[in-house]
C-alpha cells in the first residue's frame, strides 16, 4: 500500500488515532453509551457543517449559517403554536430563501461570498431580533412534544437525532455523488472557468449550493430550538467557526472541488473527539480553547492533502 493511496484517508486516520489516544488516557471514553450521547450532541453542528460543505466545495464560504439558525429558532418558537409540525415547511422555505439570496448577491452582483453571506447573515439577525422583540422566547412544552417529541426519543437505544443525521448524510451524499448537480458542483469547484467554457450554468449551480447551505442551517436551527425549547437571536452563536473548522479538518479545502460531505462527517467527529478529550482528560476550563486551537493546528497540518491544493498555497 503506497503512501499516496493513503492520502484521502488521512482525516479518518487522524480521527482513529485521536480516539485511541484519548481512550488510552481514559478508558471511560470507549463506553458505547457515552459515545452515543456525544454523537447525538454533535448532530446540530454536523447538520450545519454538511450545508457549509456545499458552499466550500464550490470554492466559496457561507458565514450566514449561524445567523440563519438563530433566526430559525425564533421563527420556530413563534409559529409553533399556529402551525404545529407544519412549521418545518416554513423553516426550510426561509432557509432556502436566505441561501438563494446569498447566492444571488454573490453571482449576480459579484460580491465575494465572504462578504455577501456575512451581510445576509446580518439581515437574518435583524429579522430574528424583530420577531423576538429582542427577548428569549420559550415554547409550550406540550405543544413541543406533540409536534417534535419524536426528534429526541430513543429506539432500541439509538437516539433519534442520530437517525435524522444518518438520513440527512445519505441524502447529501446521494446528491453529491449520484446526481448531475453533484458533478456540476465538482466541476465548478475544480475549475470555474473550465466549467463556464463547457457550457455549465455556473451561477445556477452556485445559487443552489448556497440554497442547500441555508436549508441545512435552518434545520440545525430547528433542532436547537426544539432541544432547548425556545428561541433567541443569539442561541446558535459560536457554531459558525466550529462548522467551518469541521469542514476544513475533514479535508475539504477552501479552494473547492475536493473532499465532500463524508469528509465533513469525519471532520465533525474529530471536533467532537477533541472537545470530549478535554473533558475526559480534565483540561482546565480556562485552557480548553487554547488546547483546542493547538490540537486543531496539528490536526490540520497532518490531515490536509497538499497534492490537491494545485500548486500555490494561499
Amino acid at each position, binding site marked *: 500500500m503506497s503512501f499516496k493511496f493513503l492520502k484521502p484517508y488521512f482525516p479518518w486516520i487522524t480521527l482513529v488515532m485521536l480516539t485511541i489516544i484519548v481512550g488510552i488516557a481514559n478508558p471511560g471514553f470507549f463506553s458505547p453509551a457515552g459515545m452515543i450521547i456525544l454523537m447525538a450532541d454533535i448532530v446540530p453542528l454536523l447538520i450545519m457543517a454538511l450545508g457549509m460543505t456545499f458552499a466550500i466545495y464550490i470554492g466559496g464560504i457561507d458565514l450566514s449559517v449561524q445567523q440563519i439558525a438563530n433566526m430559525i429558532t425564533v421563527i420556530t418558537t413563534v409559529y409553533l403554536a399556529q402551525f404545529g409540525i407544519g412549521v418545518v415547511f416554513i423553516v426550510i422555505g426561509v432557509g432556502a430563501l436566505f441561501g438563494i439570496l446569498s447566492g444571488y448577491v454573490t453571482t449576480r452582483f459579484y460580491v465575494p461570498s465572504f462578504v455577501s453571506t456575512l*451581510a445576509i447573515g446580518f439581515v437574518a439577525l435583524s429579522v430574528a431580533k424583530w420577531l423576538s422583540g429582542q427577548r428569549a422566547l420559550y415554547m409550550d412544552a406540550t405543544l413541543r412534544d406533540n409536534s417534535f417529541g419524536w426528534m429526541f426519543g430513543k429506539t432500541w437505544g439509538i437516539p433519534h437525532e442520530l437517525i435524522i443525521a444518518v438520513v440527512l448524510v445519505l441524502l447529501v451524499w446521494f446528491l453529491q455523488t449520484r446526481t448531475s448537480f453533484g458533478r456540476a458542483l465538482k466541476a465548478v469547484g475544480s475549475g470555474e472557468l473550465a466549467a463556464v467554457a463547457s457550457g455549465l450554468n455556473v451561477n445556477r449551480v452556485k445559487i443552489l449550493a448556497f440554497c442547500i447551505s441555508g436549508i441545512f442551517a435552518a434545520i440545525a436551527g430547528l433542532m436547537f430550538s426544539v432541544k432547548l425549547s425556545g428561541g433567541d437571536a443569539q442561541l446558535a452563536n459560536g457554531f459558525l467557526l466550529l462548522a467551518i473548522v469541521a469542514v476544513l479538518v475533514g479535508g475539504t479545502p477552501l479552494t473547492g472541488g475536493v473532499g465532500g460531505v463524508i469528509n465533513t462527517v469525519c471532520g465533525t467527529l474529530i471536533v467532537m473527539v477533541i472537545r470530549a478529550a478535554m473533558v475526559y482528560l480534565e483540561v482546565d476550563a480556562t485552557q480548553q480553547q487554547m488546547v483546542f486551537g493547538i490540537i486543531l493546528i496539528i490536526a490540520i497540518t497532518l490531515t490536509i492533502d497538499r497534492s490537491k491544493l494545485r500548486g500555490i498555497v494561499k
Partner: protein
Amino acid sequence: MADFMTGGNSPLISTLRNIILKWAPLFVLASLVLLFPIFEWLEDFQRGKDHIYLIDSRFFSIRNASRIAVAATPGLMVAIGVTFIIIMGSIDLSMEGTVSVSAVIFAFVFIALGGTLASWAWLAIPVALVVGGIMGFINGVIHVMFRVPSFMVSLAMGFVGTGFALVLTGGDRIRVEDELFRSLLTVRWLNFPIMCYVALLALLVAWFIQSRTTLGRNFYAVGGGEELAIASGLNVSRVRIMGFTLAGIFFALGALMAVGRIGIAETATGNNFMFISITAVVVGGTALWGGIGGVLNTLVGVLIVNVINNGMVVIGLPNWLQDGVLGVLVITAVVLSTNRKTISFVK
C-alpha cells in the same frame, strides 16, 4: 492592462471609467455622509422645526466626526494589518486572538512595571507590539513551512490566541487607569483625541511600507501573480512570513487603541474585529484575490462601515433594524466600489 480589460471602448472613456472606479469607495463614503443628514432634516421638517440641511445636523458635526473617528481607530489598525495579507491574496483570521493576547499582556506588563507611562511601564507598549509580531510570525511560519492555507492556520491561531488570553486572565478584566495612557482618549487636539493622530501616523507608516519599500512592492508582486514572482527570483516564503508578522504588529497596535479607548483589557477585547475588519477592507475596494487596493482604500472602507453604524444611531433607527441595514448597505457599497471589469469570477 486596463485598456485590455475594458475592451473596445475609446481610450478617453476607458480612462474616465478607471478614474471613477478608482475613486468609487470615496464617492460611496461622501454620499453616505450627505445621506444621513437628509433623514435628520426630514424628521425636523415633519415636526415643523427650523432645520438648515447640514448646518443644523447632529450627524454632520465636528463632535460627531470625532466620535466616529474614535470608534473607528482600533478597527482601522486591525484592518490595515489584514490589508497587507489580503493584497498578497491570503487571508488572516487570527486578529481576534492576537488583539486579546496583546491587550492582556500589555496590561499585565504595564501594571507590573509601575502602572504609569511616566515610569518604565512604557516598555509595555513595545512588548505588546512584539507579542503581536510573534503571533503573526508563527502564523506565517506554519502557513509557509507546512504549506497549510492561511485561512485555516490563522483561524486556529485565533482560537489559540483567545484561549491564551483566557488562560492569562482567568476570565478577569484588567483595568488600565493611568491618566497619561488614557490621555490617548481624554486629551483632544483640535477636537480630536490623540489616539486619532496616533492612528493617522500608523496609517502613514503603513502607506510608506506599502508604496515606498521593497517589501510593499513584493506584497503586490505575490498577490498579482505568485508564479511570476517566484520565476523572477523573489523569496515568496520570506515575503509571506514578513507580511504576517507585520499584520500581527498592526493587530497589537489595534489592541493598544482598544485598551486606550475603553481602559480595560480582557479576553473579549478582540471580539468582533474579524468580520468587520475584513468587510471594511473589501468595502474599501481591496480585492480578496490579491494584488489590488491598499491601506488608503482600507481607511475609506473603515470609515464607510463606521459612518453607517454611527449614522443609524444618530437618525434613531430601531436597534433591531440596524444589523440588517448594515448588511444591505455593505453589499451596496461593495457593488458600487468594485471594478467589475477586472473580475473573471467571484468566489
